[in-house]
């Protein structure tokens, strides 16, 4: 299909000020989208309140509005500009939410503005937990097992299929009050009773816990001819329980067999079709039980996301640019591949290297904040690195963070020193108190956890022991151990190398 000729003017909403969880990645995607659409001869109208963006450069759009991203302002802009379409998927959650509001309040209909890329129904289906659950069940995929419960009797029935550990979430309580995790029947009874009491409607959701499962993401693209390609698979170093934005992530996925990867790919394709994201990119997250391989769908972003920026740079496939072109009617095989120039964009990138993304935190700038990672994103930035091995990419990534570290230790800046009793930071590696300290640090995800894995190896803990504490996949841990082994070899050879240099 050629590009649409019935539309001329397209509105793109940016993501506003930079906040934790939504940074320059949406300036990147918005700018790419603008360029792609103007290249096709469309008139592009931009709205973004953030002046420190490339998007708001006078040359990026045909007209740029530096106005608040709120429905009132957007309606006025629509009234003045009368765009044919609104492309809501390039400006992060802010733009998506604003677009939904404009659609629901009837503004878009009143001015005859068409949502392109993702229709309102698809956005709702992806974002509303109940509708999403219904859609996923409809195509026969798994979600964490769950059930609503109104009394203890129902609770006993529910736990039979949910299984331990279970998460108990009372309905309609503020800020998750009364929620808890139960690992056995005694705890369960206690948490259920408390939750039922806390809920004003005496209803709780009992849900299977996927904490500690392996976490994966797929970046998916779809066109109007229903072609779907997977741009990139990503595996999280940190297991479920840590926000993807706060996880070290690795592309491509490392520990899935082809059978498992293809099952995940099938699931992602089925999801983007069922949710009905018409064109462009989506990000779909999965959790996999390391004990038996059970795969559950965690969530979907029906828009260009933070991971899309990473996936674009990791593979060379410009997701936002292609998403913009698909939104105006092109199909994937009609768009040339940016890297090869000769072959089309309807392909799945395959890479011969490993990509690592490491988040950067700034807890020191937020006095009183606790440097503990959870389901709410806290990192303020990230660094990406490329290597021919995971070890190389990880080391480069750690050096890129500007945290004054030379990599994964071996830079004289480790918290503990084990080989020099005269050193002020010396600790006896056999000290049981030290071990208890390290074990505690392995259990709780923090920005420093990766360095505690090092200390754990140095005091003689094994891959299995560290896995039991951290649930970080043994494959990653073994790679870290290999770095340490190489470091030890170099240290042993050190004097010989030194004298060789002096000679």
């Amino acid at each position, binding site marked *: 299909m050629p590009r649409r000729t019935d539309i001329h003017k397209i509105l793109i909403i940016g993501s506003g000020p930079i906040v934790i969880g939504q940074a320059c990645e949406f300036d990147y995607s918005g700018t790419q989208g603008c360029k792609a659409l103007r290249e096709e001869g469309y008139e592009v109208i931009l709205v973004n309140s953030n002046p420190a963006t490339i998007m708001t450069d006078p040359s990026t759009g045909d007209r740029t509005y530096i106005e608040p991203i709120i429905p009132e302002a957007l309606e006025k802009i629509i009234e003045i500009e009368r765009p044919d379409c609104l492309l809501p998927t390039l400006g992060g959650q802010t733009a998506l939410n604003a677009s939904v509001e404009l659609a629901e309040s009837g503004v878009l209909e009143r001015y005859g503005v068409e949502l392109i890329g993702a229709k309102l129904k698809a956005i709702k289906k992806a974002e509303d937990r109940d509708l999403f659950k219904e859609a996923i069940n409809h195509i026969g995929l798994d979600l964490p097992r769950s059930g609503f419960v109104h009394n203890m009797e129902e609770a006993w029935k529910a736990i039979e299929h949910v299984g331990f550990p279970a998460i108990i979430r009372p309905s309609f309580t503020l800020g998750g009050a009364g929620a808890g995790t139960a690992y056995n029947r005694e705890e369960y009874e206690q948490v259920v009773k408390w939750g039922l009491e806390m809920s004003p409607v005496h209803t709780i959701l009992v849900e299977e816990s996927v904490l500690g499962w392996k976490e994966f993401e797929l970046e998916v693209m779809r066109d109007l001819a229903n072609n779907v390609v997977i741009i990139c698979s990503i595996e999280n170093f940190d297991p479920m329980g840590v926000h993807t934005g706060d996880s070290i992530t690795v592309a491509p996925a490392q520990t899935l067999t*082809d059978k498992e990867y293809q099952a995940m790919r099938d699931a992602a394709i089925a999801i983007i079709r069922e949710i009905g994201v018409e064109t462009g990119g989506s990000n779909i997250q999965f959790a996999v039980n390391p004990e038996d391989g059970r795969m559950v769908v965690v969530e979907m972003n029906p828009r260009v996301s933070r991971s899309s920026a990473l996936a674009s740079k990791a593979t060379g496939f410009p997701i936002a640019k292609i998403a913009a072109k698909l939104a105006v009617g092109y199909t994937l*095989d009609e768009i040339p591949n940016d890297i090869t120039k000769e072959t089309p964009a309807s392909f799945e990138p395959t890479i011969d290297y*490993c990509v690592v993304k490491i988040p950067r935190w700034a807890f020191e700038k937020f006095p009183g904040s606790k440097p503990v990672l959870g389901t709410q994103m806290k990192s303020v930035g990230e660094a990406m690195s490329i290597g021919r091995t995971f070890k190389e990419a990880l080391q480069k990534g750690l050096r890129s963070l500007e945290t004054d570290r030379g990599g994964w230790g071996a830079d004289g800046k480790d918290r503990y020193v084990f080989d020099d009793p005269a050193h002020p930071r010396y600790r006896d590696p056999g000290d049981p108190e030290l071990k208890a300290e390290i074990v505690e640090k392995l259990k709780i995800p923090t920005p420093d956890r990766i360095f505690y894995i090092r200390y754990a190896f140095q005091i003689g803990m094994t891959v299995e022991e560290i896995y039991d504490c951290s649930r970080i996949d*043994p494959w990653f841990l073994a790679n870290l151990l290999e770095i340490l082994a190489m470091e030890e070899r170099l240290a042993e050879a050190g004097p010989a190398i030194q004298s060789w240099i002096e000679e």
Partner: protein
Amino acid sequence: MEDGSIYQGRAFGAAGRAGGEVVFNTSMTGYQEILTDPSYHGQIVTMTYPLIGNYGVNQEDLESKKIQAAGFIVKEPSIVPSNWRSGSSLEDWMRSQNVVGLCGIDTRALVRKLRNAGVMRGVIRLGDESEPRGGELDGIPPMAGLDLVRYVTTQEPYTWSEKLHPYHRAQGTLAPQKAPVRVAALDFGIKHNILRHLAERVREVHVFPAFAKAKDVLGCNPDGIFLSNGPGDPEPVTYAVETVRDLLGAKPLFGICLGHQILGLALGGRTFKLKFGHRGSNQPVKNLDTGKIDITSQNHGFCVDLAGVDSQKARVTHINLNDRTVEGLESRELRCFSVQYHPEASPGPHDASHHFDAFIEMMKT
């Protein structure tokens, strides 16, 4: 390497010597399926993805009874495999099957060489630079003109009943009821997942040796005939081309990979060798009738050309979007079709499994 270059690395797997055509595969997953695919007979496979062996080896993801590749080259084999189904490490498995591997070389440089100069013969051997060289490639024949089917085909006919792996079935796209039909499959080096796909959909699957005659095959009274994948050059496999020519028009016929090439030859087309072949899980193929694109799994060094064939008799149905070469053909008149790529996947995407359904439909009508 045939051009005199040497890549010095470390041995892994079994210690010893291995020779063959050195090819590369761009799949990032599926090394177990690749190594056991009979189409790699006589080849040394290099993986472009550098980290291999990460998820170990299991009992299920096998495409034949043993490792078929002559040797395996990777940048970095994993020392600690991690996957709940893993039973052993890649290296232990290779050692147990006496398969030689080479690791720690710059696989990217090797792949660039093969892309620029074309695939060539090579040898993996133990030793160091000081040892005298010469004659390493003696006894390793060039791939063009080589019939390798004879080494991998079954010697006796058999029936197959194992169905698809649960991971394949989870998509919920397969026909719930088996068609009451019987398929005769000619084994040129057949991958188990093709047989599993067939057994999933039809009541009986009879497998015949590559050298079976048309009357042997028709003897089981099949409703359709399947031509399998396999190694080497299709041209010298004249016995199979003859059999297929005799079978044309008798029953609906479906071919994959080497089976597609043999069908192309039987229809009067020709085949030629590609510079470095298509081997990987991300090859885009376009259906010329519908415009639909499938991301496909491929493994072939030769290709069909239908230029000299009457377009009324047979026509090209699919092309590769990377180099526009033929990926599928059909003859409505003779009720046959074939694809150069691998709809059975394993490894690779499941996008093209609809071809098996089309074959069943053809047999039913």
